[in-house]
């Protein structure tokens, strides 16, 4: 078991997502920054859908009760193992009683902790991703326990993975959304020339952007939305749906974020800036 001494602001278990239930309104869920999680699971030679901890803004304090290997990635949060600093993308061994704790958020917004073999919490509807009310809780609390298997023999092929991360990226690659054609010249200019600021309203469901563009009067029938769909409200507000976002909506879908852009955005917090570029 992994014991959660302190849970931090919002720490949840996430995997590659809950596929196959969007027709009954269940969002895909899964890690917000799947780009990073893919790398971490690759370093540990895990399955693509191995479950990790997603740690938002402030980190937890965790006690390991079984020997295994871990790797951290995503946001930089001054993580330590028994008070010694940890680096991202590097494999560390943990033994019984080891404590990983997090400090100040330095860069990015969501940190990930992956473990050899993945966390083994219960699967609900094919996934371990926490999403209420599909799973009974949507984040971990103090004193919760998360199961994992011990692994004493893992010898990583890569012990440290040196690639640029996406924490500094601010450019979001997008495709034209289904209702892109409703945009006029003024809207298009603003859309692609503005550095948009992340609004306070940002979470696993959606990110709102502070700067509005010109609104619209299109009345459309409710239709499917995806994670990464950029909706335009009649008042001109831009809302980007994320992994726990609603599966259908009635606002025009003007842009669709590329997979990597969803990960880039997932590392942004209130006040950060992003801009759009057509892929």
């Amino acid at each position, binding site marked *: 078991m992994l014991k959660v001494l302190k849970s931090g602001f919002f720490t949840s278990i996430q995997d590659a997502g809950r596929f196959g239930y969007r027709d009954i*309104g269940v969002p895909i869920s899964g890690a917000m920054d799947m780009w990073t999680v893919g790398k971490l699971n690759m370093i540990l030679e895990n399955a693509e859908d191995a479950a990790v901890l997603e740690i938002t803004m402030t980190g937890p304090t965790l006690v390991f009760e079984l020997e295994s290997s871990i790797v951290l990635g995503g946001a930089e949060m001054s993580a330590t193992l028994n008070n010694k600093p940890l680096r991202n993308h590097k494999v560390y061994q943990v033994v019984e009683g080891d404590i990983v704790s997090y400090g100040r958020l330095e860069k990015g917004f969501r940190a990930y902790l992956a473990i050899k073999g993945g966390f083994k919490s219960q699967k609900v509807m094919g996934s371990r991703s926490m999403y209420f009310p*599909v799973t009974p809780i949507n984040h971990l609390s103090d004193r919760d326990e998360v199961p994992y298997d011990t692994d004493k023999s893992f010898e990583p092929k890569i012990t440290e993975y040196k690639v640029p991360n996406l924490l500094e990226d601010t450019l979001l690659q997008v495709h034209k959304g289904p209702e892109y054609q409703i945009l006029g010249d003024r809207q298009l200019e603003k859309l692609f020339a503005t550095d948009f600021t992340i609004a306070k309203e940002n979470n696993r469901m959606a990110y709102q952007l502070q700067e509005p563009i010109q609104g619209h009067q299109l009345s459309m029938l*409710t239709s499917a939305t*995806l994670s990464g769909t950029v909706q335009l409200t009649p008042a001109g507000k831009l809302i980007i749906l994320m992994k726990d976002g*609603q599966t259908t909506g009635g606002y025009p879908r003007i842009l669709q974020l590329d997979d990597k852009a969803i990960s880039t955005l997932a590392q942004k917090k209130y006040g950060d800036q992003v801009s759009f570029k057509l892929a």
Partner: protein
Amino acid sequence: MNTYSLSIRPFGVHAILVEWPNKVQEAILEDILQFMECLKSNLDMHLWELVPAYNSLTLIRRGDPIDFEKFSGQLREWYDEKGTTSPKDKFLWRLPVCYDIDFGIDLEDVSQRLGMSIPELIDLHTKNTYTVFGIGFLPGFMYLGGLTSALEIPRKATPRLKVVKGAVGLAGRQTGIYPQESPGGWNIIGNCAIPIFDAKKNPPCLVKVGDKIQFYGISRAEHELHKIEGEVGIYQIEKIKIDVKGP
């Protein structure tokens, strides 16, 4: 033959949006559902998700991007051939609603604004059957069509921060049930204690797009009983198979 002219567009690189004429019509929904059945027999359903809603069908592929040019052509071929696919069984679900004013917290206000008595309002709400045109927004939230114009009422000017699970509401031309506690601006006229969505059940959602819903009024005592049944997961809902006429 009931074949429409479809619009097929890419929706990012992992999805394709197929659209029928921009109308709320049973015949269009029927055509979408028939096409869906045809697609299910042609696609690897471990890789694909199909999301129908009103006049659209969105196909979402897991993993690799879709070759749009190639796949959209294939879709049109399948659409032309779909006439041979037999439609899926449809059901009419009869759902118990307690229209007590303790649950129907806007009943009195709605009855005043619509200029009818509460019994008249309940009578109108329970008389019609409603078609499920889509499920989305929240797990198990049904977009229902077929509300009588006499019950059309604008959503509340200020949404409530908290609407309870099971609340039955009216808003514009829509009626529906909140499948979980959430903020909301609908006028609440009752409560349905039977969960439409339950992650512990297989399938987790009883109702599917194309099914029909009818509400019937029950007493507080019966409602309490259904609530307990819902919590422990033992409940029976009256469902009636709808006869589908062949082509």
